[in-house]
């Protein structure tokens, strides 16, 4: 038991470090527009791709490196030490890519995967709908066959990056007369197609990280179908499995931040860190933070041995989203009424505690609610049976949707 790389891993890590040191672009900290961010992200991604550092575990012929999972992890560890643009390709490369790799034709893979890896084309995922969130298979966006095309009508929601994406993967209902999992069909779609309208959603944090996407008579060639007609659920599962692997811990203030705050703020005229009630809470958060960190190490050890980690990663999201919410809230409690100030000039720690308080509710929901993740862990990890299904075997159009 140690924290060390194997000799081969160490050698790989050294190579990564050398390349990163030589190639990470300088950046001045000034705030930038979204367009500028995208430009910068694309430029960095292209640079990586050209040197063979994009989508490491993808096959070389599709723009990857044919690297092992642990090599991917090592790359991520090293890259994350730098302030390089990240995130806008995550859904494409993390979820759309694997789906395309599994279900697209060889020609399509050659056409779409390399530009996806290089960041030349950005992809998004069009799954959730207003009436189909936790119950994704309850989606109703309609796909109707029209000659060699499909006509799509409906609405998707919670689509990150829809407005700057070139392509999207889309799951639709092609047959409402069969049970819900059986009537779905999966496509990829050109986001510039006529009939697609995109509206940003403002979150309670004030940010707009998501969109609503409306489809009005959008035409998709049948050749852009992934998987068989009616087999869209199985294709979606491929995507979602990859989502769960991609789900990391929440950003925002963590133990170190609340520890620092407690050292720097007073309660009853002494540093808050001297207050035993504060220490008690800090200790709990430290143990959780550490527990997640070492759980991740265990997962990486499994990768290192060539094993595939299970959906245990869901633990991280459940624990860290709640912790984030609690830390945000408690940080403000220590600041008392002054804690509500969100004025740049007077708030502490760049407002990270207020940000956590407003951002954490979204984290407890996006990518699977706390409740859905508990179901997943219960069923996939612990092997507990499913809940009774009211909609089992019922034709989709006969499933109750209101009272």
């Amino acid at each position, binding site marked *: 038991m140690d924290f060390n790389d194997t000799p081969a891993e160490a050698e790989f890590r050294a190579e990564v470090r050398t390349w990163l040191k030589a190639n990470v672009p300088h950046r001045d900290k000034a705030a930038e527009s979204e367009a500028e961010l995208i430009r910068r992200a694309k430029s960095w991604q292209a640079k990586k791709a050209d040197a063979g550092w994009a989508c490491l575990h993808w096959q070389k012929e599709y723009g990857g490196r044919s690297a092992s999972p642990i090599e991917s992890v090592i790359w991520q560890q090293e890259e994350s030490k730098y302030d390089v643009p990240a995130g806008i390709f995550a859904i494409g490369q993390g979820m759309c890519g694997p789906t395309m790799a599994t279900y697209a034709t060889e020609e399509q893979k050659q056409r779409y995967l390399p530009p996806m890896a290089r960041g030349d084309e950005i992809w998004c995922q069009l799954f*959730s709908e*207003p*009436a189909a*969130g*936790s*119950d994704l298979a*309850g989606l109703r966006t309609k796909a109707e066959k029209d000659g060699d095309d499909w006509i799509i009508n409906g609405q998707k*929601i*919670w689509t990150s990056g829809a407005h700057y994406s070139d392509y999207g993967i889309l799951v639709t209902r092609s047959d409402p007369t069969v049970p819900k999992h059986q009537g779905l069909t999966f496509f990829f779609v050109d986001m510039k197609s006529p009939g697609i309208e995109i509206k940003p*959603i*403002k*979150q*309670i944090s*004030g940010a707009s990280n998501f969109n609503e996407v409306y489809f009005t008579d959008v035409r998709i060639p049948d050749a852009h179908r992934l998987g068989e007609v009616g087999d869209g659920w199985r294709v979606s599962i491929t995507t979602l499995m990859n989502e769960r692997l991609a789900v990391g811990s929440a950003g925002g203030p963590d133990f170190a931040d609340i520890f620092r705050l407690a050292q720097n*703020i*007073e*309660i*009853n*005229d002494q540093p808050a860190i001297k*207050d035993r*009630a*504060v220490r008690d809470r800090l200790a709990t958060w430290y143990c959780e933070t550490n527990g997640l960190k070492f759980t991740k190490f265990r997962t990486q050890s499994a990768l290192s041995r060539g094993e595939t980690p299970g959906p245990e990663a869901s633990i991280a999201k459940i624990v860290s989203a709640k912790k984030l919410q609690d830390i945000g*809230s408690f940080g*403000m*409690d*220590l*600041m*008392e*009424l*002054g*804690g*509500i*100030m*969100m*004025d740049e000039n*007077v*708030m*502490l720690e760049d407002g990270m505690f*207020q940000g956590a*308080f*407003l951002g954490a*509710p*979204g984290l*407890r*929901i*996006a990518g699977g*609610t*706390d*409740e859905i993740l*508990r179901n997943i862990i219960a069923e996939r990890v612990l092997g507990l049976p499913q*809940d009774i*299904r*009211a*909609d089992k075997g*019922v034709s989709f159009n006969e*499933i*109750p*949707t*209101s*009272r």
Partner: protein
Amino acid sequence: MNFEFSEEQNMLRDQARSFLADKCSLRNVREILDGDAPFDAEAWRGMIELGWTGTAIPEEYGGIGMGYLELCVIAEELGRSLAPTPFSSSVYLFAEAILTAGSEEQKKQYLPGIATGATIGTLAVFEGPHAPSPKNIKAKAANGLLSGEKMPVPDGDVADFAVVAANSDAGLSLYIVDLSDDSVTAQSIKTLDPTRSHAKINLSETPGELLGNEGDGWNILGQVFNAAAVLFAFEQVGGAQAALDMGKEYAMTRFAFGRPIATFQAIKHKLVDMYVATELARSNCYYGAWALDTHSTELPIAAATCRISATDAYHESSKENIQIHGGMGFTWEFDCHLFYRRSKLLSVNLGGEPRWKDMLISRLEQASA
């Protein structure tokens, strides 16, 4: 045993609720959230016309002298409706401070304006993001002139008068300050809950009129905070109940997997936990109301008890209401966040829960000694 509000008080509640539903719906609250106005002037005028600002102010000072139980009833409804008005600053804080420590003259001078709504008052204690104490309050008073920076001051940008906490040679003292004085600057500041206005106030050799004995400021604040804690606790319970109702309503109408999500135990039991917390808080609030109304010596204990449990209930209820709403819950468009924001404001506005818990145990130690 008559541990309930009276029929008359419940009638007042019905009136208040229907007035607020009409003049101060969540649509009105959103206008304040998204707009530039510091408060809802029309709702505020309506409350004044109904005499609410004078509810617990004795008739000799221009109030209608109904009493604190009635004020508690109104507070609960204000909390439920998230009323974006300076009511609490003027009535729970400023008027309470004057009633607690003011001379007969001061009461006659300042209370009628509050009661009739002609003036708005507030209380300026905090000086940035940390817990205030007699030691760390930097505002200074000398020769009746005050200097210092107070923030955030609730409704500090719209108030006419403030009771200001400042250190003089004799220790922490309170002063009544006319905020229209030229030496005062008040600047609105952005906060977590934009539906309630807060400001940064600068005093620079500003005239202040001593309130109560010099050096007695922390003690007086403690008394004012006890009364205010009960009133805010009713606002918190009102808000907790509204968030619970909202979550329940959504859970009963939102379908997933072919059934209302309210049929899933994860949601069902969450709603029960919200309900249990809210009921416990409500019962403790009744105790607080009784103690406040009867000027009981138990008020310090009752106030801490109801504040802690109402803070807990509102936090849980507003937080889990978002969770029940799923994706829609964390959108700006849905109203869930209005309760979540207000819940946090009310949990820190009289000092944070950790300090109140500490005070509760101190008071119980004293009582048992």
